[in-house]
């Protein structure tokens, strides 16, 4: 057992530069043993960089890390892990084809004379589960389990490696409000048994609820370091962003027009033939924003892919775009009939990082515009469209021949959203439009979505950010266990109620409780 110093971790003047960008600028703070220590900040404030320095994925340019009162200098992530720092990542690091137990043990197998003793290992995992009150199906395969359970697997994995300090990187972004309750209970359990938790987040309510101590990062600096006593959400927001943010987008009720999308009995199987969506039926009208809420993996991803045309639905499914059946058509043909698409994974599907700005804005637009004599590129048209996107959506570039990899995440997202919105489409699928981008870009994109629907476009908004769905949608559908259901009075639902629906609790049950 290491010395029982008061502080398990002390950081002194950590600096990290990427070229001209200062990601961490003399960051210093102390983490008390057995506490929940929250680190908050906007995207780009330097949280992730700091965490990758702690776990030795990156190396600091200067500054000291002190653990248990002794300065440490890790040379590999493995050393960091052996000294008791464990991380629960936002994107789970689990192997889908393997069982829960195998995932937990992997990379840290205990052996008898060089041979793997699975029984012994599993016994150890069971002991951990018992002592921290986790109920995990150790023999199940990862891809059969819901997200909230996977997170517990990640936690047990870290505990199995005997971590003393556990870093949670935005752990609640994948959970329903009910899942968040469970996580906080687990966190309390952990600190009760002497573990220390670093809680990285940008959700202020959660911080106020669970944290003992709060460190605020802004532009790579520590702007506040305080106990969680008599702090208000407003104050924290101001410290974090530097100005008051109100994501208040006033939406008036638009005039609902004709039906732009009708989905009937949509059934989708994935490549392995596993059923992902079962008989989904709903419609979207022009001037209407229909939001889809659901925990990750509930079928909303497959729903989007099937409507866009990336995957083929099962026979019997019907997709009508502006009254015309499009189920058999290619993506290009659907786009020509008025479909716009902002994909969830913007780097993979939304943008060509190697290409120039104009090449990126041209994609999709080129199907019907920007041509001379049918097959030549009309550079005048293409570049004026690129300039229009860049100006209307304030994408920060110098020239439209700049390459896309020079842009930040927020600017890339503005570029994609602008490209899809300015083409005069009649129906748009928008997936996670504000994930992981800066505040300014979030505000702009949400305003543009609202304005677009006012101009009479029908929008299907698939987002994992519940507050976003509630704020923007006229109607909310819930994806739960391969089904799409439409709750009554969906625009009046609170986050809590939606959370219940997302995990299978009915509206009535909710009222009783």
């Amino acid at each position, binding site marked *: 057992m290491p010395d029982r110093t008061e502080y398990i971790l002390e950081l002194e003047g950590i*600096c990290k*530069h*990427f*070229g*001209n960008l200062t990601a961490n600028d003399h960051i210093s703070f102390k983490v008390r043993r057995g506490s929940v220590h929250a680190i908050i900040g906007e995207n780009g404030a330097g949280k992730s960089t700091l965490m990758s320095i702690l776990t030795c994925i990156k190396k600091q*340019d*200067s500054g000291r890390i002190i653990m248990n009162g002794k300065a440490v200098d890790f040379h590999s992530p493995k050393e960091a892990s052996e000294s008791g720092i464990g991380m629960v990542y936002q994107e789970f690091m689990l192997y889908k084809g393997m069982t829960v137990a195998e995932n937990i043990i992997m990379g840290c197998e205990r052996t008898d004379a060089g041979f793997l003793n699975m029984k012994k290992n599993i016994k150890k995992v069971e002991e951990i589960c018992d002592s921290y009150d986790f109920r995990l199906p150790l023999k199940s395969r990862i891809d059969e389990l819901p997200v909230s359970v996977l997170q517990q697997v990640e936690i047990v994995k870290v505990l199995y490696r005997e971590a003393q300090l556990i870093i949670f990187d935005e752990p609640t972004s994948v959970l329903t409000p009910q899942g968040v309750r469970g996580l906080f209970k687990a966190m309390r359990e952990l600190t009760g048994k002497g573990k220390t938790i670093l809680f990285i987040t940008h959700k202020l309510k959660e911080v106020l609820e669970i944290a003992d101590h709060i460190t605020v990062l802004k532009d790579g600096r520590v702007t506040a370091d305080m106990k969680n006593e008599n702090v208000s959400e407003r104050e924290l927001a101001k410290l974090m962003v530097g100005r008051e943010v109100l994501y208040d987008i006033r939406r008036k009720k638009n005039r609902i027009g004709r039906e732009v999308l009708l989905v009937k009995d949509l059934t989708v199987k994935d490549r392995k033939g596993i059923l992902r969506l079962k008989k989904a039926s709903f419609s979207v009208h022009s001037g209407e924003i229909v939001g889809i809420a659901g925990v990750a993996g509930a079928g909303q991803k497959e729903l989007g892919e099937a409507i*866009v045309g*990336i995957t083929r639905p099962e026979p019997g499914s019907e997709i009508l775009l502006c009254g015309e059946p499009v189920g058999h058509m*290619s*993506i*290009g043909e*659907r*786009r*020509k009939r008025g479909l716009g*698409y902002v*994909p969830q994974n913007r780097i*993979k*599907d*939304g*943008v*060509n*990082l*190697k*290409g*120039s700005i*104009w*090449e990126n804005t*041209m*994609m*999709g637009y*080129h*199907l019907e515009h*920007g*041509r001379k004599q049918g*097959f*030549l*590129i009309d*550079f005048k048209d293409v*570049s004026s469209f690129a300039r229009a996107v860049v100006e209307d959506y304030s994408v920060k570039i110098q020239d439209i*021949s700049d390459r896309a990899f020079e842009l930040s995440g927020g600017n890339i997202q503005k570029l994609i959203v602008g490209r899809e919105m300015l083409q005069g489409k009649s129906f748009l699928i928008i997936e996670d439009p504000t994930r992981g981008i800066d505040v300014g870009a979030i505000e702009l994109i949400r305003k543009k979505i609202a304005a677009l629907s006012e101009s009479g476009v029908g929008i299907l908004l698939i987002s994992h950010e519940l507050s976003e769905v509630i704020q923007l949608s006229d109607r909310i559908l819930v994806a739960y266990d391969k089904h799409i259901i439409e709750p009554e009075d969906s625009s009046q639902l609170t986050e809590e109620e939606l959370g219940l629906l997302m995990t299978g609790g009915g509206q009535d049950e909710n009222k009783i409780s």
Partner: protein
Amino acid sequence: MKIRSRDLRILCIQYAQALIITVILGGILIRAQGESPTEALKYILEGAVGSPTAIANTLRWATPCMFTGAAVTLAFKSGIMNCGIQGQVYTGALIAAIIGYALPMPKFLHMPICILAAGIVGMLYALIPALMKLYLKVDELITTLMLCFVATYLTEYIVIWMIIGEKVDATRSMANTSPNILETAEIPKLIQGTSTSYGLFLGVAVLIIISLVYRHTVIGYEMKQMGENLSFSRAGGVNTSKMFLGVFLISGFIAGLCGGVEVTGSYGRFNINFSGNIGWDGIMIARIAGNNPLSVIAVSLIWGALKAGSMQMERMTSLNRLSVNIIQMLFVLFVAIDYEKLIAEFNRRKATAKFKRQEEMKC
């Protein structure tokens, strides 16, 4: 739309450095074999540009490089790993040779039909891996590589057992080649008395057309985007399966043309395994040219010059032509270094070091 000065600078640095390192290593290599590097270089230059015949030789060897370079550039730029150029060249060459000797035709028809047939057969040979990828999801890198061997041995089999075998008495002396093609099937020679033909211009034309397609047409735009990010272009409405098939087939067609031009323009018959390197040369040339069709012309000329020159060097010194091959490979190796990333990394380190110095001064 335009090449920016920074990109151009990096490009120049890239080639200059590769050239310098290659010259130094090549010099050491030649010296190690007991010959004088300057002497060797003199003979290479002499053989490449020293006389009209030398220049003709250079152009002759540059011609197939342009075709294979074009075939590879087209495929790679769209993200298709067509490594089966070799096989497509061979099958195309054989069909051109067979039509050339066996089917008498009027002069104005015979030669174009030979070349066209070569292209079509090359294309059909590329259809096999393309369909295997689309319907069976077999990686085209593997299938094209394997089909190279199939083509090499299949053409050999056909020539020895089916073509020579038939009239074994008459052609015993000319083992391992098909009969000479008829005069009507030959491409006119560009320079009389050499094996340089007008096929050269066909190669240049193909590359110029490819370049124009990429720069100015919507389909060229789609091809480039598909190569740079497949799922981006699919989500953007590009019919990627159709495009994949189309580009693969055209790539095979150009490789087939190469075989046709080699037979009707230079060799005049099908020699078994007539150039074991032709397909790989194309891959290397495309790599050096950075998949830019116009650069392929320049690189092909250098390639041809090296080949013609190294033959002269071999005749005049004790050095082996393989030395030049090694030097060529070294050049490819050095050009393949990603200088842009290296420079970025260098700048980052410099900035970090500068920052550290400032920190120390503050302390």
